């Protein structure tokens, strides 16, 4: 499934919040990558985040 830009932002945001609060990362993170948002984006790129969206039919 392709995500819209809003969905992508929301998923990465949610995951970054988890990471920032101390959640273990799901991938091997390269050294020096500290920012939770960067990590979340990497995880998203690798399709490692166990989160999707529930789409509602319009109206």
């Amino acid at each position, binding site marked *: 499934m392709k995500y819209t830009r*809003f969905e992508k932002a929301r998923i990465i945001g949610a995951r970054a919040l988890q990471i920032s609060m101390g959640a273990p990362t799901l991938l091997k993170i390269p050294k020096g990558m500290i920012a939770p948002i960067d990590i979340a984006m990497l995880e998203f790129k690798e399709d490692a985040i166990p989160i*999707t969206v529930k789409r509602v039919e319009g109206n």
Partner: protein
Amino acid sequence: MDKKTTPKKTKNKKDKKKVDTKKSLKTTKKIAKKEKKQIKKKEYKKEVKEIKKQTKKTTLKKAKEEKVKKKGKIEKKKEEEKEEEETKIMVPPPAKKDEPEEYKKLRTEIKKILDDRFLPGSVIDEIIIKVLNEKALEKKLKIIIDRAFEHYYKNIIDPAEACGIVGAQSIGEPGTQMTMRTFHYAGVAEINVTLGLPRLIEIVDARSIPSTPMMNIYLREAYRINSDLAKKVANQIEITKLNSIADIETDLTNLTIKIKTNKTTLDNKNISIDEIVDSIKKIRGIDVKVEKDSIKVVLDEPSYKKLLDINETLKDLKVKGIDGIKRIFIRKEPNEGYVIYSEGSNLEKVLEIIGVDPYRTTTNDIQAVSRVLGIEAARNMIIEEAYNTLSEQGLNVDRRHIMLVADVMTTDGIIRAIGRHGVSKEKESVLSRAAFEITVSHLLQAARRGEIDKLGGVAENIIVGQPVNLGTGAVELVMKKGKKK
């Protein structure tokens, strides 16, 4: 008529009689109307014939007499038949231009390639034209279509996009640059039309009558080529007051009014004296006598004051034409023939006139369009008018922003204004209405009625302190099921 009413014998006899008389009255009225229309048609047929005959005659003279006479008769008969067919079908729909074979072929091919995928018609049309121009592209058709599809879906708007806000800003920002030079003379004709910001406000406010109503009246095949016929149609449309075609003189000694008509002006306007008399007779308390070229009006009861009164009404008496249409200009347009431009608008009546092409005639009175042609037509008119007023000022606003505005205005089946009196007033949500205007009274009334707010819109959610149901806020996250790495 009687047969229809007889089955309902359950009602009282009196009632039935009443119904009968009413119905018969209606039918007689209808019949009278029909007859009038038919007479009108016949008159027009005659006129068309006469003009054609005249042109025929002049051409006939040039050729040899006897042979041509025979031929001419046959041709005339044929033409008469043709004309009869033309008038029988009141207004034939515009002939659809058939696509050339190549286009059709390509179109079916594209459809095959697209399969279930969707591409808008305008994109397909563009591809067809491009491909037909460059034959080399035909082999790459599949790649082209795939690319077009890809690009189309890349650029299509995402769900949950705040398209309304984007649209409002996209129209609003160029709107600030609109000049104050608001009046403009449309084309060569000296018709004054409101344009620019006032016109845009007028469209969006859904005014019942535009400040400068205007019509472009296109004519049907035979009428738009022949200047005489075009003039005749124009004469039927333009309002003609008695004052402008005749001299009205009051005879104070005899307490009579004499209306002297001028034959040439009457002929020019194609009005007969009988028509004038008919319209004068509608005034009460007078008697009309026709004397050659003049009309004598005698009061039933001699009174000086009444004479002056009637003199005033006579001056302003409508002899011919359509109410609301003030001035008319006929212009010859390239590739079109004669087109009538009018100051003032009355779509209902103009469309009834024989010779007017109802498929192309337009007015800038959007409410009239909605009344006569329906809400879809009104939506198109809003888009067209708003787009034209903006682009006329050199502002390029994307059509789709305006389409959104038009959609909001017309979704209910009636035209609603944007703002206080229309859209904002009829919002479902209490909080949204309260946020707009007169907060306290809206909240009070809502409390009295026990209204429920579903918190669907932007304003409500902001008031409550929730994320707005737009963009990122509209996304609902769930855990991915199964599949662990």
